[in-house]
């Protein structure tokens, strides 16, 4: 560009918008205003509060029957059909009777319909939460003296157990059988987790999910899936092995399986192989022909129906000693308050359960909200998921959260609103009231196969690891660390390890940001890294320095070292050396005075600042995110050292928060004008101001 910039600038009108000084009210007045605002109660506020708590009130009157009803009913039916076998299967994972899973599915769907803000998320049984509930239940059963490996097998035992439970409830005895105690532990855990989630929602802690990154959640799901697969292997083989808990659970379980593989039940092995083959083949077909088939094939239902029929007429339980699901009673049990003593004992486990459930629910809700063009509230999601755990805890339910696979099925089948949850709940209710006894002869290995096949999505994430490694090695390491710790230690430790590693890698990378000297691009106002680009024009006698990161205690030394190295001047040492040299200056001055030559003295005065090659340092503060006390002290010391060397330090492109920090820290001095002289909106304006100031000094010296 050959046109000179001066005439154009004169022609254009440069409007400078200055930032308003903040109006500082009194602290007492601010508190009074806030109290008055929060205490004011009016009808619109109450109405908005109710609508916020129950979003169904807002969107249900606007429901469009013609457009939405068909899709909602269809997806609700499909989800209901898929939900029943998964619910029965996952109760095995949680160490509970299948009837409790059906209760959980029913109540969770109803409550989320009322309180959820997402239109597509399905809240219900989730395998990771079932695993965590099962681990706590097993531990408490061991502590209470029950034998967790004792499976209630025959219908006689189940009948006597249920009869004893009813008798216990009637008589009011404190004694309780194994299954009754197991559901008590599960409900106490669920209530505590739900209370944590509701509390997080009330305190607006939805941002906590920010700290769980996607690779961390993927690694956690992978590790937990391996644990689930390990826990179901004994059912698929029909092997009776002792239950392992705590450290090294996965390794010990696999060792026990290998030792006892000779005692495998042939009937269970054959049935498992057949079920796995059918389920996997159906899944592959569904994935391949997904676009043609509007409705996915409910393979789980087919497998369950066929397996139940074969098991019933073949009498596999009596002839081959294969384990079956047992009696599933119909109807509902009276509500019961969870035991406070158990609640206190499981409070710590409930915390990790609440965090995992919240993280998955919020991330799923936000994912589908983004893809379908509406917004969800993280805090309202916390309240909704929390209430899905709190209220059902009184109805013998256990922990729930959003489930990814069922949510995907919902979207594929044309779900539009949460009305599909009501349809799903109706299907579950039908099973609860009428169809439950039909599943008596269902083999447990079939349920285990359904669980394992549903983990396919999570287990397949291993294929994403090489891609993740190429994108971001740090995230890949977080993924591997989380998964490995989940498998080798425990799921809670895996989650903590993942959070710790991800935050540690982030902290490590902010300590060594990139530092560069900038130079001008031709005649434009842009400045870029001189080491990266060719053909740049360094500003004469001015150094522009960019430090891409916050300035705080961890990297302030790196900041100074980078600045000194790039400018070729160690300001600290040079300032000290100059302080020790005033005598030499005095002697030079006396010699010059002896000669009575004024021009020579002015020349000598000019030579000293240019000994370092520049007279001004401009720091590009645009990448400077924040300052703390150490960073502030570093800037102050830097300016003092440069002032001792007659070098000016200017800051460009400061953000408002950094500007406030500088003002509070006393960097700008007492006058208001100091801010305008030291801070500039852009690098170019700072460089121009420095050159103008330099020319003024030269003119004054020449005048003398």
């Amino acid at each position, binding site marked *: *560009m050959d*046109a000179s910039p001066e005439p*154009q*600038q004169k*022609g*254009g009108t*440069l*409007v*400078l*918008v*200055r930032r308003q000084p903040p109006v500082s009210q009194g602290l007492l007045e601010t508190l009074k205003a806030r109290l008055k605002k929060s205490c004011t109660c009016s009808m619109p506020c109450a109405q908005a509060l109710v609508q916020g708590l129950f979003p169904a009130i807002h969107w249900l009157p606007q429901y469009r029957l013609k457009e939405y009803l068909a899709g909602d009913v269809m997806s609700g039916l499909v989800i209901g059909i898929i939900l029943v076998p998964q619910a029965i299967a996952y109760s095995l994972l949680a160490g509970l009777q299948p009837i409790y899973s059906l209760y959980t599915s029913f109540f969770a769907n109803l409550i989320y319909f009322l309180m959820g803000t997402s239109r597509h998320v399905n809240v219900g049984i989730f395998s990771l939460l079932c695993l965590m509930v099962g681990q706590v239940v097993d531990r408490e059963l061991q502590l209470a003296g029950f034998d967790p490996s004792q499976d209630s097998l025959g219908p006689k035992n189940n009948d006597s157990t249920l009869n004893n439970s009813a008798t216990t409830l009637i008589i009011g005895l404190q004694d309780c059988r194994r299954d009754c105690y197991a559901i008590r532990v599960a409900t106490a855990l669920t209530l505590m987790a739900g209370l944590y989630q509701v509390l997080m929602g009330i305190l607006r802690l939805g*941002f906590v999910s920010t700290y769980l*990154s*996607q*690779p961390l959640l993927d690694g956690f799901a992978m590790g937990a899936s391996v644990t689930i697969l390990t826990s179901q292997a004994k059912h698929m083989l029909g092997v009776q092995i002792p239950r392992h808990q705590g450290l090294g659970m996965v390794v010990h379980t696999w060792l026990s399986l290998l030792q006892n593989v000779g005692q495998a039940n042939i009937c269970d092995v054959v049935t498992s192989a057949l079920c796995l083959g059918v389920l996997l083949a159906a899944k592959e077909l569904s994935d391949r022909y997904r676009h043609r088939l509007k409705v996915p094939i409910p393979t789980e239902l087919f497998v369950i129906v066929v397996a139940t029929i074969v098991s019933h007429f073949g009498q596999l339980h009596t002839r081959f000693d294969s384990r079956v699901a047992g009696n599933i009673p119909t109807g509902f049990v009276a509500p019961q308050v969870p035991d406070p003593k158990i609640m206190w004992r499981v409070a710590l486990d409930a915390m990790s359960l609440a965090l995992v459930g919240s993280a998955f629910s919020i991330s799923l809700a936000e994912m589908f909200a983004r893809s379908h063009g509406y917004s969800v509230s993280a805090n309202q999601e916390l309240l909704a998921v929390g209430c899905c755990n709190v209220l059902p805890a009184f109805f013998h339910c256990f922990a729930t959260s959003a489930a990814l696979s069922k949510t995907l099925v919902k979207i594929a089948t044309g779900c539009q609103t949460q009305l599909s949850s009501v349809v799903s709940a109706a299907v579950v209710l039908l099973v609860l009231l009428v169809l439950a006894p039909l599943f008596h002869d269902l083999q447990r290995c079939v349920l285990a196969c359904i669980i394992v096949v549903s983990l396919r999505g999570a287990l397949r994430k291993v294929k994403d690891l090489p*891609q*993740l490694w*190429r*994108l*971001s090695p740090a*995230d890949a390491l977080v993924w591997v660390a989380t998964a490995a710790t989940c498998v080798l230690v425990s799921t809670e430790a895996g989650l903590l390890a993942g959070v710790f590693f991800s*935050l540690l890698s*982030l*902290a490590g*990378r*902010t300590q060594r*940001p*990139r530092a560069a000297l900038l130079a001008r*691009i*031709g*005649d*434009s*106002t*842009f400045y*870029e890294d001189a080491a*990266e*680009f*060719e*053909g*740049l024009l360094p500003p004469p006698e001015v150094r522009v320095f960019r430090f*891409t*990161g916050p300035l705080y*205690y*961890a*990297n302030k*030394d790196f900041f100074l070292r980078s600045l000194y190295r790039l400018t070729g001047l160690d300001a600290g040492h040079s300032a000290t050396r100059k302080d020790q040299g005033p005598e030499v200056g005095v002697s030079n001055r006396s010699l010059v005075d002896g000669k009575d030559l004024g021009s020579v003295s002015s020349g000598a005065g000019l030579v000293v600042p240019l000994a370092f090659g520049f007279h001004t340092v401009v720091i590009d503060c*645009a*990448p400077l*995110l*924040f300052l*703390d*006390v*150490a960073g*502030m002290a570093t800037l102050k010391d830097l300016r003092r050292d440069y002032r001792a060397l007659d070098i000016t330090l200017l800051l460009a*492109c400061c*953000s408002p928060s950094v500007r406030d*920090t500088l003002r*509070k*820290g006393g960097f700008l001095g007492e006058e208001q004008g100091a801010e305008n002289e030291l801070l500039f*909106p852009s690098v170019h304006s700072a460089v121009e101001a420095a050159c103008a100031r330099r020319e003024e000094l030269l003119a004054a010296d020449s005048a003398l």
Partner: protein
Amino acid sequence: MTGAKRKKRSVLWGKMHTPHREDIKQWCKRRLPILEWAPQYNLKENLLPDTVSGIMLAVQQVAQGLSFAMLSSVHPVFGLYGSLFPAIIYAIFGMGRHVATGTFALTSLISANAVERLVPQSSRNLTTQSNSSVLGLSEFELQRIGVAAAVSFLGGVIQLVMFVLQLGSATFLLTEPVISAMTTGAATHVVTSQVKYLLGIKMPYISGPLGFFYIYAYVFENIKSVQLEALLFSLLSIIVLVLVKELNEQFKRKIKVVLPVDLVLIIAASFACYCTNMENTYGLEVVGHIPNGIPPPRAPPMNILSAVLTEAFGVALVGYVASLALAQGSAKKFKYSVDDNQEFLAHGLSNVIPSFLFCIPSAAAMGRTAGLYSTGAKTQVACLISCIFVLIVIYAIGPLLYWLPMCVLASIIVVGLKGMLIQFRDLKKYWNVDKIDWGIWISTYIFTICFAANVGLLFGVICTIAIVLGRFPRAKTLSITDMKEMELKVKTEMHDETSQQIKIISINNPLVFLNAKKFSADLMKIILKESDSNQPLDDVSKCEQNTLLSSLSNGNCNEEASQPCSSEKCSLVLNCSGLTFFDYTGVSTLVELYLDCKSRSVDVFLANCTASLIKAMTYYGDLDTEKPIFFDSVPAAISIIQSNKNLSKASDHSEV
């Protein structure tokens, strides 16, 4: 327009490095700093200030040695040894020129935990009859110094292990608020431990969590058993010490020599106690017998090392942190450099080697180091000279200290901690500059008081890391670059063309999972405002829109109100020069942003991308390969946009 191209980087191979004799010599110089500054010692300039400082330091070393040995629950004579041997070793290996190594209140307090736990007071009667030939002290005292020496030995070994592991580079985690709060809290502990001597109360040893509060509860319960003589003696000593030190501060510039008030007080108190026979008349507790000479070396008992592991870690950590803060402070003040890792070696050896010579754990102390500042010390020769005087005390003057009252020693300790307790005044500074650092200071101080110095230190470090990570999601992510001059230049080239809507947004921070969500929300907000301004509005509304948009800029208007461009396609240029690193979430956010803007008819171009970012984005998503997306600089992107526009204009003309 002058385009700037990216430089080609040539890879330079580092040549193989063979070991030479100079390398070995340089290694010795690095590990033995005395070999570097001893030959260059300037006798004419430095000897006199160092001698004066050495004499002053010796007085403090003797007083604090006796005091801190008492604090460490061992016989006072071992404090004299602790003032002698660590200083010699630090002068050889240390890099701080104004660091006075010796007994230290905080490490003495930590060591007392081990001594009182393993050799409690109740076992004194069992061993009082058998006198050992070493120094004429009882076996009870020898057992106690054995425990303290074991703590010193193991603490030094831990510091040496940290030196081998190069953990000196991890000292950036120790920020000024954390160190200040930890030392102030620990000083509060020391003052609390001296209350029983100041008041003359017989008190059992109380430690452990919340021991601070139990001690004061015990004092208030037994307030009637206070010895008035001890209380008066303590008050008089404190008043004299504070007054004379204030006078020293005021007349520091006029009088170069500081009045050794500690020495005068020790002499006067001993003489008064001797003349009036206070030990028998009033029951005052005195120092007692101090033997002559230095005993032969003896190894600390190795079988109890596992029992004192906790205290050893505390000694290693707290001693190193306090010493390093002093070394870095003096290096900053007098403009020389200190190697953090070398300090590990120096202090490790200062604890390991003296543990064979009946020494308690050692570190640099703030009071002594401040004394070296004020008396004009230049090098570690001052410490060596002070060692000569400590030797004189050990061999000659020691027995004269028999009648020194314990309450006077306690007063010297308490007044010596004034420098640490004064750090409360920093709270106001932290409140003004950064309230978060103020909160870190307060919470670290509370943790140190309730538990221990190392627990407070650990809490402070964790809290600081967590707060820095917590700031990332809330930092401002975007800034709009000034478009004024660029538009003017564009006009000169094509006079009849209307300016296209181009927004240049600089990304000023790394894009990771913590702030990717906020980044996406902010960018969408800007784009939506841009879309709103494209709708047909009257001039007043356009001015308002410009005013709103200008609030997001750095103080300049970005648009001309008189140039409506409702029919033009928008372009967005992201200046990624500040995007220093990213992770999986950051890349996925950028790709989703690109696809989302594409669906909104907004072209997105990325300038100043690093090679890893370009590679990651092309690998992650199915980007549009027809038109280029990545550019070397912002002007290059703008010129491409203009040329694309010219092509579309030419095609329109050809159709016509």
